[in-house]
């Protein structure tokens, strides 16, 4: 097995086992979205209009929830030292870790979306559209969030600092994710334009995220 494949497999395994964070994100997502109809009240039209925004906000917060452990856990047990010293490029290793985090924590959110669409009175095409935008947009959240996770290791601060650093970076993703979902559901704008920008944001973060995270980790060697 290749080195990066081994890293991805290890991180997914740890996330899925007892004490791993994979299910925490989905449970958080489920509870936030399930509570929303109770807070907004039994107005079906309003719920359908707010639906995409609620799903996106839930997904954004859920993906932040476990992100601060991305490098911190490896830093605390010394694995990060060995990863930095290894013969693999640190940039690729960072990318592999982010990919594993997305598979373990991001993908389940998308799988859970159809169930939650029912609670928010979204019809099938609308739910499919939201799920598609989440599929295109959540990788951008993980890969930009990784920069914050690396900085949290460098600065020896976790938790809240990550949210403060990462949330501004995720605003464009939120704007275009919700815009694309709304366009698919109510029109009159076209779905294509915001969705293409959303995909572009993800592709952009694939390139910038690993380099920025690796540079931050090198800077923070201690």
């Amino acid at each position, binding site marked *: 097995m290749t080195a990066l494949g*081994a890293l991805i497999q*290890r991180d997914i395994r740890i996330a899925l086992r007892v*004490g791993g964070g994979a299910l925490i994100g989905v449970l958080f997502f489920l509870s936030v979205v399930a509570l929303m109809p109770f807070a907004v009240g039994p107005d079906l039209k309003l719920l359908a209009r707010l639906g995409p925004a609620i799903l996106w906000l839930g997904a954004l917060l859920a993906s932040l929830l476990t992100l601060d452990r991305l490098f911190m856990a490896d830093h605390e047990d010394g694995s990060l030292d060995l990863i*930095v*010293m*290894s*013969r693999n490029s640190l940039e690729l290793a960072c990318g592999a870790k982010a990919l594993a985090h997305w598979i373990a924590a991001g993908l389940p959110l998308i799988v859970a979306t159809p169930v939650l669409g029912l609670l928010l009175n979204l019809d099938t095409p609308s739910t499919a559209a939201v799920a598609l935008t989440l599929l295109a947009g959540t990788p951008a959240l993980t890969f930009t969030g990784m920069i914050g996770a690396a900085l949290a290791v460098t600065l020896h601060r976790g938790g809240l600092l990550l949210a403060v650093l990462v949330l501004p970076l995720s605003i464009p993703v939120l704007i275009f994710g919700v815009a694309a979902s709304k366009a698919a559901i109510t029109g009159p704008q076209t779905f294509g334009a915001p969705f293409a920008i959303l995909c572009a944001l993800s592709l952009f973060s694939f390139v910038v995220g690993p380099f920025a995270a690796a540079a931050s980790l090198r800077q923070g*060697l*201690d």
Partner: protein
Amino acid sequence: MRLSGRGLKCVRGGREVFAGLSFEAAAGGVLAVTGANGSGKTSLLRLIAGLLIPAEGEVALEGGEAELTLAEQAHYLGHRDALKPALSVMENLSFWQDFLGGEAFDAGDSLEAVGLDHAAQLPAAYLSAGQRRRLSLARLLTVRRPIWLLDEPTAALDAAGQALFASLMRGHLARGGLIVAATHGPLGIEARELKMGGMS
């Protein structure tokens, strides 16, 4: 193969840990770094491993593989074991085998050599401190690296474990390896001593 440092100065948190430090180690030899707590033994090892940047001076390796950096040819065994409690003993070891790459040996044989073959399927969370150390030693055996940087390698090891470790080091030196070990106690093997903290 020769590892040498010249005029090394290390500053951590605004405090000078050591300055003007020079050392030399050759293939087949052990350099034992000794000194009081806080004299900079761990800092020196991390400096050699490339995990700290020296404020002054440089570390050089002659006669290693030209295409690889010093860190890429070295094992670093630190205070922290780099083990994941959720994974089994075997999974931990084979992950590092796959990830670190290079010339590798059978992970099962290494576990047997350090006396952990009976616990291969046990989650690492249930290992004792000494067993965790043994599992870290198995990593040194499974993945071949010519330079071993060891920080308190015998800590938590029982008498049998220390004897085992001494024989592992002898095997490594016989293959032309090089060892730099920070230690308080005896290593159980002949070594040149580098005393820290006596320079200022």
